[in-house]
C-alpha cells in the first residue's frame, strides 16, 4: 500500500483537474484545472523511473560497480512534457487576457455567443 501511494496521488490529481475543467465557469479556473492534469501525468512518468535504493543516473559519479541507478529515459520524457506544459500555459493565459480585454468578463457562459 505504501508503494502505491504515488499512483493514487496521480489518479486523484487527474480526477480533480478534470472536475475543474468540466464544472467550473471561470476561465482562470479552467486553466488551473488543465495544469493539475498535466502535473498528474508528469508525476506518473517520474514514478515509473524509480527502482528500489537507486541514485541519480549520472555517469561520472559512479564509484563502485554495483551502484543502482534509476532509469533515465522517463526523466527525459517528463522534462519534455514540462516544457510543452509551459508553452501551452503561456498561450492559454495570453488568450484569457485578450478575452477579458474584449468582453470585460471571465464567465464562460457569456463569451463567444454566435449572435452578436
Amino acid at each position: 500500500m505504501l508503494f502505491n501511494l504515488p499512483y493514487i496521488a496521480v489518479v486523484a490529481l487527474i480526477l480533480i483537474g478534470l472536475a475543474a475543467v468540466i464544472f467550473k465557469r471561470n476561465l482562470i479556473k479552467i486553466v488551473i484545472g488543465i495544469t493539475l492534469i498535466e502535473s498528474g501525468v508528469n508525476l506518473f512518468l517520474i514514478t515509473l523511473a524509480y527502482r528500489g535504493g537507486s541514485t541519480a543516473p549520472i555517469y561520472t559519479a559512479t564509484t563502485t560497480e554495483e551502484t543502482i541507478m534509476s532509469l533515465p529515459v522517463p526523466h527525459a520524457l517528463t522534462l519534455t512534457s514540462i516544457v510543452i506544459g509551459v508553452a501551452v500555459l503561456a498561450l492559454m493565459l495570453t488568450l484569457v487576457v485578450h478575452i477579458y480585454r474584449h468582453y470585460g468578463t471571465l464567465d464562460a457562459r457569456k463569451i463567444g455567443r454566435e449572435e452578436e
Partner: protein
Amino acid sequence: MSIEELFNFLLDHSPALIVAIPLLGAFLTPLVGKINDKVRNAFAILVVAFTSFLVFLLANDILTNNTIRTYVFGAENAGSPIVRILFEVDGFSAYMAIIASILAIAGVIYAWSHMKEHTGQDKFYTLVLLMIAGMFGMILTGDMFNFFVFLEITSIAACALIAFYTNKGKAVDAGFKYIVISSIGALFILFAIGILYSQYNALNMAVIADSITFSFLDKIALVLLISGLAMKAGIVPMHMWLPDAYGRAPASVTVILIGATQASLYGLFRMVFSVYGNVFSSIDVTKDTVINTINSVNSVGWMLIILAILTMLIGALMALKQSNLKRLIAFAALAEVGYMLLGVGVRLASKVSQDITIAGETTTQVAFQGYSATALTGSVFHIMNDALDIGLLFLVAGAIYLVTKETSLNKLGGLARNMKYTTVFFLIGLFAVSGMPPMNGFASKLMIYQSTFQLNPIIAIVAILCSILLLAVFVKVFHSAFLGPKLPSLKDVKEAPKSLLIAMGIIACIIIFIGLFPNLFVENIVTPAANAIMDSAKYITAVI
C-alpha cells in the same frame, strides 16, 4: 556530383529533410522578413514547394515499389535493443503526406493575397511553417513519444493561428476552446504512452507491436489512445471546438487545419491497426481465447461505428440551420469525418472465426470478412476526397469574404453575375461533397455504402441519408448566395484576385481528374496504401 547522385541523396534523406526544411524555414522567416514583404512571402512559398517536391519523390518510390523506408537519427543502425528514434514510412504514410502537401501548397499560395492588409504577417508565416513541419512529423514518425511531441507542436501553432484576428472576441474564444480540448487529449495520449512504456520498456511502435498482449493495462491504454486521438480529430461527443475553429479562423489557416485534424485521424489508424495489429489480426490456437478476443474486437468496432453514425447525423442536421457560410461548411466537414471513421469500425466489427478442414484436420482460423477490405479502402480514399472537397469550399468562402466582407447568408445574393469563376468552383465543390457523379466523392462513398450494407443495412441507410441532407444544404446555399437578383449593397464587387483563383483552380482540376478516372487512382495509389495499413506484420519486420 551528377543529377542522378543528387536525386539519390535527396531520396535517401527525404524523411528527415521533409520535416527539417519547413522547421529551418520557420526560424529563418523573421530574419528574411526584415528585407521586404514580398521576399518573405516568396521564401515561404519556395520552402513549401521544395518540401512538396521531396514528398512526391518519396511517395513515388514507396508506392510503386511497395517497400517500407526507415531512417535512423544519429547513427547507422538503431542499436540492439532499439534505442534510437527512427522514422518509418510505409504506403499509408506516403499517401497522407501527399494529401498534407497539397493542402499546404494551396494554403500558402492563398495567403499571399488573403493576408495582404493585416499586421503581424511575420508571425503568421512562421506559425504556418511550424504547423506544416509538425504535420509532416506526425505522419512520418515511427516512435510513440516523437508522435506526441509533433502532435503538440501542431496544436500549439494551430491555436495561435486560429486566434489570429485578435481584434474580434469570437476568434480568440474559438482558439481557447481548441487549446483546452486539444491539450486534454494530448495529456491522455501521454498517459497511455507511459502505461505502454512501463509494460514493454520500449517507445518504438514496431517493438511494442511485436510484444503486445491484450492484458488489462493494455486495454486501458487502448481506450485512452482512442479517446485522446478522437478529441483531436473532432469526433462526437468531443466535437465542440470544430465549428468554431474552422468557422472563425482565416480561410488559408482552415485549409491547413484540415490537414492537421486528418493527421490525428492517421494517428488513430496507426495505433489501432499497427501498434495493436497483432491483437486484432492474430491467429490463436486454443478455442476459448479465440472467442474472447473476437468478442472484444467486435465490441470495439461497434463502439466506433456508433460514434461515426452520431458524427454524421449531428454534422448534417446542424448544418441545416446555420446562417453563417463558413460555419455551415465546418459542420459539413464534421459529417465527413464520420464517414472516415465508419470504415475503421466496420473492419474491426467484422472479424469471425471459421473452421477449416485441411487434409482431414479441423483447425480454427480467425479472419476478417471479405467486405471489410473494401470498407477500409473506401475510408482511405475518402480521406483524400474529403480534404480536397472541403478545402475547395473553404477557399471559395474565403474569396467571398475577401471581396464582399460579409459572411452571413442573409446579406449575400446574386454573386454569380460578377464572380463567374468562383461560382463554377463552388458548383464543383457542391457536387463533390454530396457524392454526385462525376466528381470524386461518388467513388469513395459508393465503396463505403456497398461494404457497410453487408454488415448491417441500417448503417448504409443512415450514411445515404446524411449525404442527401448535405446535398439539400448546399443547394440552398448556392441558391441564396449566388443566384437571384443582385443586392444593392453588393453592387460593385469584382472577381477574386489571381492567386486565389490559381489555388482554387489547382484543387478543382485534381477533383475532376479523380472523378473521371477513379480506377486509375484506386489501383495505383489507394490500394497500396490500404494494403500497407492492413499488413501489420510487414510493419514490424521492417524494423526488427
